[in-house]
């Protein structure tokens, strides 16, 4: 049976929203930990704001709250239905997409998604504070893993699979790029401290946001160095959240579509452009050019992949 353009769109965004919910939870966890470790007056709030900036949510936050503290930021990122990127909104959007394409996903995937939404929507924000917040953030990540596991374990390897996988990894690439960029925002006001103790602490948190603080040691056998960490999250092909890994993953799934449908589309060219950014380069070149600019180019190129994919396969 041929697939509706709308179905492809729903599948792509279903995966994106699940991944986004997971990453929102990670980002918030980092912001929360940063704020706990800040010893300076007002430092906690600063860290939270820079985290919001990296997620491009600082303006939306400022419209709703005057003070950035753990409670207001946690509410905004976890529960606020008016914040389209909150975990609440992401899970709701993912579940709505899943419901629209119930015939295109497996029962296991649906039950995982539906169960996650039903449980999460029952939680009252005031019951989730302090240590409980960390528990809930972990729960969000685990539900995302569960959904992905159901997907990998049960769905046919056809065009629907390719759209789901592409959505997942386009979103992940976007998030990794933003997490790295957060470092730029954090350090910008106090760049004199590069290499200092606080600097290392912050890099640790960046790694943690990518669930990479332990695997770093396995790869580099070295203490935290900005060069290595950026290398890890951008160029290492064995790191499943690195930009190059995500880009390869999306490419493979676009190639699957080209194979199934018997033709290449505009999105395949956009993908080639994106790959040029992360292949045949090294960290020295990227730092020489400026990390922030590089990340911006990557995010733009990644968005072009989504735009062209939407046009190529009749999303509407």
């Amino acid at each position, binding site marked *: *049976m041929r697939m509706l*353009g709308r179905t492809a769109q729903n599948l792509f965004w279903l995966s994106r929203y699940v991944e986004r919910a997971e990453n929102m939870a990670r980002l918030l966890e980092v912001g929360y930990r940063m704020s706990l470790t800040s010893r300076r007056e007002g430092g906690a709030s600063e860290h939270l704001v820079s985290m919001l900036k990296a997620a491009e949510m600082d303006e939306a936050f400022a419209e709703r709250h005057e003070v950035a503290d753990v409670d207001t930021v946690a509410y905004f990122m976890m529960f606020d239905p008016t914040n389209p990127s909150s975990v609440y909104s992401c899970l709701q959007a993912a579940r*709505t997409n899943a419901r629209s394409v*119930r015939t295109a996903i497996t029962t296991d995937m*649906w*039950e995982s998604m539906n169960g996650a939404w*039903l449980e999460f*929507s029952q939680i009252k924000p005031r019951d989730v504070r302090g240590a409980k917040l960390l528990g809930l953030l972990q729960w969000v990540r685990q539900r995302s893993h569960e959904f992905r596991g159901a997907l990998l374990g049960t769905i046919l390897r056809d065009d629907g699979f390719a759209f789901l996988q592409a959505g997942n990894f386009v979103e992940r690439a976007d998030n990794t790029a933003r997490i790295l960029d957060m470092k730029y925002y954090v350090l910008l006001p106090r760049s004199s401290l590069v290499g200092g103790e606080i600097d290392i602490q912050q890099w640790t948190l960046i790694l943690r946001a990518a669930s990479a603080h332990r695997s770093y040691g396995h790869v580099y056998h070295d203490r935290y160095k900005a060069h290595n960490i950026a290398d890890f999250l951008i160029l290492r092909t064995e790191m499943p959240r690195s930009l190059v890994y995500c880009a390869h993953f999306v490419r493979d799934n676009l190639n699957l579509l080209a194979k199934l*449908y018997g033709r290449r589309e505009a999105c395949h060219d956009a993908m080639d452009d994106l790959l040029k950014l992360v292949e045949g380069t090294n960290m020295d070149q990227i730092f020489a050019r400026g990390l922030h600019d590089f990340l911006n180019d990557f995010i733009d190129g990644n968005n072009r992949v989504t735009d062209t994919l939407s046009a190529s396969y*009749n999303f509407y």
Partner: protein
Amino acid sequence: MGENTPFDEMYNADGSVREPYRALSEWLAEQPEKGLALMQADAEAIFRKLGITFAVYGSEEGTEKVIPFDVIPRIIAANEWRKLSRGIEQRVKALNAFLYDIYHRQEILKAGRIPEKLILNNAAFCPQMMGLEPARGVYAHIIGVDIVRVGPDEFYVLEDNLRTPSGVSYMLEDREAMMMLAPDLFQRSKVAPVETYPENLRRTLESVAPAGAGRNPVIAVLTPGIYNSAYFEHSFLADQMGAQLCEGQDLFVDGGKVYMRTTTGPERVDVIYRRIDDDYLDPLTFRPDSMLGVPGIFDAYRAGNVTLVNAPGTGIADDKAVYTYVPEIIEFYLGEKALLNNVPTYNCTDVDQRAWVLENIAELVVKEVHGSGGYGMMVGPTSTKAQHEEFRKKIIARPDNYIVQPTLSLSTCPTHINNDVAPRHVDLRPYVLVGDEVRITPGGLTRVALKKGSLVVNSSQGGGTKDTWVLED
């Protein structure tokens, strides 16, 4: 029509168990304390997890609810079912013949058997359908006949749902759940399967594909979308049939043919099982403000390039005012006496009948002619004096807008209520498919009024469902 002691389907008046319920009765007696309550909790968890929900319009908290499911099945004996299904088949054949006639030569009107005004001035009459030749002459392919039982051999048809009857997914899921919950009970009984419905639906739809369609016609289920109360059912049926689930925006008409928008371009559609009301089907032919439909789809249908299931305009045959003529209709087209009873219905536009109705309203059921889902109706014996007065005024103001029937004493079935078993009133909606042949799924959907004494079984009014067993000989 026993007024005070309703017919119970499990127990005779002397307390002995009726034959079809023997295995169930034994099984009930063996259940440990709280056994049913545990089963009930399991059932609810299953349904919620699967997302088997319906939307209640106007309810404020979350729009999706799980329809209550009762863990005690309702049982119909083989000989009872044979009788019922013969009556149902007769009815749907006659109603399709009636629809063909109404949209062609209108012989029944010329013969004066039904008043012309009642049909031609009826909002459910669809003039755009005049002269159109639907595949195999079938208009109503998918039908849900609402039946109530008032005695061992007394069945009445309450209404014929010929537009887009819903609920069939509950019939299927109730069976699925029941088999999970009580496999031992199934082992002791020979229950006719209902799982054949999706396959039969597919065969029915294929059998009415337009002449130009290929060997494997492309079938789409057209849904108003995820916010519709029956969305779960739409996706469920599409999934079970292996058909495409479409919204209006997924389809378009080009050169008089219908296509869907796929990832690799347009694909021709042959048969559309549409779950969108006539009015919203095509903004070019019907309501121009409809966002749900497909512009031009009706012309494609008229041109014979696509089959719409059910056909537009079938509502003229299940209109509550036309309902009273169904025995007449059966006789006119089939030359047979109706096998199933109609409920006697009073016509409020008749002065004498109206006077009698107004006087006896406390004993009667009043229904809006175009109402459904239990909205806009009043059950006299369970309503207050103020409500009686309200409906008296309504009838006087618009006598043609209401039909009135005696309050039937619906049969009762044992039902699990608060860890106990108590009789509750039930009705039955068997599902009928009409295409190259008439296919009736044994059983149907049993709806049960969970409130003690209540006769209103609609899910929107606190009703639940039961798995319905037709025993095989």
